[in-house]
């Protein structure tokens, strides 16, 4: 077992932990974009659809292989159908499997007993073995991921207590490790909100997509449920173009687009103009919904009056935004 062995030199720089609305309610939870994940992170991804899943797990897998880390994916899906590995990604799956950098392990081999039922102890043993081998093979880190949706929904569903117990043991071993990091995936529609919260709370890190843009002043993050963007920091004239570009990327589909402004500290007047302009161009006349306005942004909008911002409507104010924290 080499979960917590020292590796020479710092493989990863110091990280900063970002708190958000969700994290403030559950202070043990940190939220990180997938590329900021580090060894010791036992991460949680409750995805709302395959796009969100692929935009988190894809980079997780690819960046591991590109930096000669080991990737362990417990799944029954064929390797070339996995996020980040399918056609369109220039990753030689077979070559990575031959060198041992990519381990795609079936559920039967990883965590099922003779009867085909989930056996938590086997899962923990399997992961421990993979990490140990990775150390012996000279990998500096191991990235582990699996999708738990089948455990809570479907013909082979397991007792929730068993799943939670398994997660605790995985967490107990990943968290102190200087080599291993894990993302446990679940389709948020696979179980009840209460079950989702119980599962989420066995993790320390909420994993989300990488930001679309981040220059230290303005940060734009894609959100999936609801469809839209989380805009953080300061939106000003120098950053209108990049914001407009991102807005037009999510502005194409049907249905409402939501902008989470809970962490938008400043918006310039040109930014309001830009929002109204995009809103009037929305297909089907659906408005742009502004959620969780920060006091400053709300003050400016109230002063000019919502009616001067055609196509913009006020959205939710209270509680965590659905999709931001792992429960729906």
């Amino acid at each position, binding site marked *: 077992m080499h979960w917590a062995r020292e590796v020479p030199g710092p493989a990863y720089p110091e990280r900063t932990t970002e708190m958000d609305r969700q994290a403030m309610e559950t202070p043990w939870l940190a939220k990180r974009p997938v590329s900021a994940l580090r060894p010791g992170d036992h991460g949680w991804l409750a995805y709302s659809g395959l796009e969100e899943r692929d935009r988190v797990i894809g980079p997780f897998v690819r960046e591991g292989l590109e930096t000669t880390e080991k990737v362990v994916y417990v799944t029954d899906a064929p390797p070339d159908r996995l996020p980040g590995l399918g056609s369109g990604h220039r990753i030689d799956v077979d070559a990575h499997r031959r060198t041992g950098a990519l381990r795609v392990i079936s559920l039967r081999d990883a965590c099922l007993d003779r009867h085909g039922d989930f056996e938590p102890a086997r899962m923990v043993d399997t992961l421990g073995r993979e990490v140990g081998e990775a150390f012996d093979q000279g990998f500096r880190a191991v990235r582990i991921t699996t999708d738990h949706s089948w455990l809570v929904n479907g013909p082979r569903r397991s007792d929730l207590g068993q799943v939670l117990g398994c997660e605790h043991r995985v967490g107990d071993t990943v968290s102190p490790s200087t080599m291993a990091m894990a993302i446990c995936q679940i389709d948020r529609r696979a179980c009840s909100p209460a079950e989702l919260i119980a599962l989420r709370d066995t993790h320390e890190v909420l994993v989300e997509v990488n930001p679309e843009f981040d220059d230290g*002043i303005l940060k734009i993050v894609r959100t999936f449920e609801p469809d839209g963007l989380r805009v953080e920091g300061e939106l*000003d*004239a120098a950053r209108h173009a990049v914001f407009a570009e991102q807005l037009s990327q999510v502005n194409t589909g049907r249905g409402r687009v939501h902008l989470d402004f809970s962490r938008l500290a400043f918006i310039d*007047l040109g930014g*309001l*103009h830009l929002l109204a302009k995009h809103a009037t161009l929305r297909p089907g006349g659906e408005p742009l919904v502004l959620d969780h306005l920060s006091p400053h942004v709300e*003050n400016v909008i109230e002063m*000019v009056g919502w009616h001067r*911002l055609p196509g913009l409507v006020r959205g939710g104010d209270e509680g965590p935004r659905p999709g931001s924290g792992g429960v729906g």
Partner: protein
Amino acid sequence: MALEHRAFLYRGTDDFLSATVPFLTSGLERDEAVLAVVREPNLSALRDVFPSADPPIQFIDAAGFYRHPVHTLRDYQTVVTASAPRKVCAVAEPVWQGWDERRTREWIRYESLINAVFENSGARALCSYDTRTLPPRILTEARRTHPLLLDGGLTRSSDHYVDPVTFGSGFDRGRRPERPDTAEYLPVDGDDLHPLRTFVSERAHKHGLTGQQTQNLVTAADEVAANALRHGTPPVGLWMWQTGDDLICEIGDGGRWRPGPSPLTGYIPPDSALQRGFGLWTVRLLVDLMELRTDRNGTFVTLYSRL
């Protein structure tokens, strides 16, 4: 329908009631949206005359309504819009006490702007001026800003009336405030205004503006600077200093910029953020007073925040 904008020069409460009561009564009879935005003691006197009018008259204390000309005009416009399709019938009494010279001028300018903003509203406004207490200069200006006068029981057109565009252009030729050598200076180059916002915010805080005032000033200065970078001529710079009870933030460039397309752009409340002049109008909304001056040194926008 045309606006009926009358200045009512009155002498004392009895005289005030003698014209305003029939005026409000006529509004009720015509099923107009009737309001009285007047000062005490006139407000209480009117309330006593109409204890339970049906439909009701909206009574508003002018002391709260007339605090900032841009806000006041915006709020009147909200009333007119919300009342449509009914027309508005309003007795108004602007507040002239407590303003310095620059702010007094701004209030006078806004009295003139009413003629443009509500030009086709069909509204009827009786603007009351107490001849016993107001300085002669205010009464003189009232004759220039109102096309109609009600004086001594008679309504007649004002011989001194000046249209709002002509009226405003005279105001813009006023002098800029004296900028002391101790004014703090920030050159504005590049297009990233983050350092400018930090500069303004720190100084606003240091001089004692409230958090809300500071954020409003930062938003206003950011807009003016972005505008100068876009339409002005380098060099663009920002100065801040304190004069009396005002913190002043001035942004200048070397060009000769005029808001367009109309001389009233930025004064008339825009219908939406998509209209020209939205930025300039909102800047005026955000700070206590904004002045725009063009002289041989360039174009200067001066933002005043009351400490």
